[in-house]
C-alpha cells in the first residue's frame, strides 16, 4: 500500500474525525495526514477539501526501503527500468525514486512576470 500525504486545511469548522468502513482519519486543522487507501484519500479530498501533497524523494525512498527486493524488481520492471534483476536493493530504490520524481519546473510555470 502506498502512503498518501494529505494537507488538512486550516479550518476550525472541520470535523474532529471521519471514518468510512475501517478507514479512519483525525482531522487536525493545518496538520498533515497520511492515509494508505486511494479511495479514502479521494473521499477526504472531495468532502473535506484536503490537498494531496507531492511524494518527496525522501518519503518515497523510505516507503520503498520497506519492500523486499523481488517486489522492488517488479516495480522497477513496470517502471521501465532496464536490467532491474541485476541491481542491488539500494540501486533499485534510487532508480525508482529518480523515475518517480517530476523534473523541477519553473515556479511561475513559464508565465511572464
Amino acid at each position, binding site marked *: 500500500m502506498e502512503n498518501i500525504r494529505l494537507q488538512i486545511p486550516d479550518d476550525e469548522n472541520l*470535523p*474532529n*474525525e471521519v*471514518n468510512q*468502513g*475501517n478507514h479512519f482519519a483525525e482531522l487536525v486543522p493545518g496538520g498533515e495526514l497520511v492515509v494508505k*487507501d486511494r*479511495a*479514502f484519500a479521494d*473521499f477526504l479530498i472531495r468532502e473535506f477539501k484536503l490537498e494531496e501533497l507531492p511524494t518527496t524523494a525522501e518519503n518515497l525512498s523510505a516507503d520503498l526501503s520497506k519492500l523486499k527486493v523481488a517486489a522492488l524488481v517488479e516495480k522497477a520492471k513496470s517502471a521501465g527500468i532496464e536490467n532491474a534483476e541485476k541491481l542491488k536493493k539500494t540501486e533499485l530504490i534510487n532508480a525508482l525514486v529518480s523515475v518517480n520524481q517530476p523534473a523541477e519546473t519553473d515556479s511561475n510555470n513559464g508565465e511572464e512576470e
Partner: protein
Amino acid sequence: MSDTATNRKYAWALQTDYATQKAIAAGAYKQILCTDENTIDYQAQIGSNEGWAHGYNTETEEWIEAHDARVQHTIPGFAQELGKVYYLNMADTVSTPSGGTLSRKHTFVPTDPTVTRQDKAVSYVENVGAGWHKLMPSAVSDGFTLRGDGRGVLMLDFSLVGAGKIVNDPAITYPPTSTPTVTNLSGLYKFYNTQVGITPNDGGSYNTAYSCRYRSFQIAFRKTLLEEAGFKPGCANFLTAGNPDSGMIRSALEFDKQSLEFNFNVDMAANSPEFQCVQDQRPIALVITASGGIIEGAIPFEHKVTLNIAKYRTTKPQLVNGIWQFAISGKALFDKVANKLFQIELTNDVVSYASAF
C-alpha cells in the same frame, strides 16, 4: 445450579479490520445491555456424496464445507449505545458542538461504496452460564430498526453476521470477576418516545410538525450483505488454520445494496393530508427528532433523523388503542444533491466510537 434469564450476558469489541479478532485483555470488551434472550444461531454447512454414482448402496460420507453464525439483539435507545450500532453500519463524522467540551455531534450517513463496501466488524461474546460461553469474531451488522411507541423507551433491533467461526470457552471474564475482560456500561441516557417529534415538508402546505398527532415511528435501514461471496476459496481461510477439512470461514463480508424504509402512526386530520401525499406520490422531507437532557451548558442529548426525499407508499386507517389513526409507510430515496440516502445526527458525550467499544 440452573442458569436462568438473569445469567445471560453479552459484550462486543470493535476490530481494527474484518479479519483480526479483538485481543482478549482486561477491559477490552464492552457490555451489550439488551432486552432480548437471543443467542448465537450457528450452522455448519455440509456437503455429502449421497447422490454420487456409487453403483450400489454405499455408506454416505458427509463433510463440513463452511460455517455460518449470526445473532439478533434489541437494545434500549441509550444516547451512547445507539451510536455503536450506527457506527458499525454507517460512516461517522465527529464534531464538537459550539461551546462544548464534553459533548460531541456524530453525523452518520450510509457508507460510501466508492470508498469501501466493508463496514466495521466486532468480536462478539455471549454467556448464559458455564454451558454456553462463546466468542464470535468478525461480526458485521446488516442494518438496524429504530422504533418508538407509546410511553416507552426507544428500541433498536440489529443483527450481527459472523465469519462463521465460533470460539468455545474463550478466556473472557465478566463482572463481578476482578479485572474482567468485559466492562459494564454506566452513565447512560435514555430517549423516550415522548421526546420524539416528526416534521414533514413537501415544500408547500404540508410542512407542520405532527406535534400532538404523533403516536409512533419506525425506521429500518437495511444492507444486503454479500454473504456467499465472503467465502473466498483463494484465501484458504479455515476454522482451523491450514486445515480445509475443518470448513471454510469468511474472509470478508461486504454490503451490496442499502435502503431505508419507515412507517409511523399519527392521529387523523381533516381531509387526510397524508392520503393526498400518497395519491400524488409527492416527495417529502422528513425530520424525526428526539431531544432531551443537558450534557453541558445548553447542549442537550439529541437524536435527529433526516430523510431528504421520502415518498409515502401507503396510508391507511388503523384502529389503535381504541382510536383511528393513519398508519403511514414509505421509503427514503437517494438524494443526489445531498449525496446521501438519509442521515442521523446524534449528540451525546461519546468522544469517539473508534475507542468506545
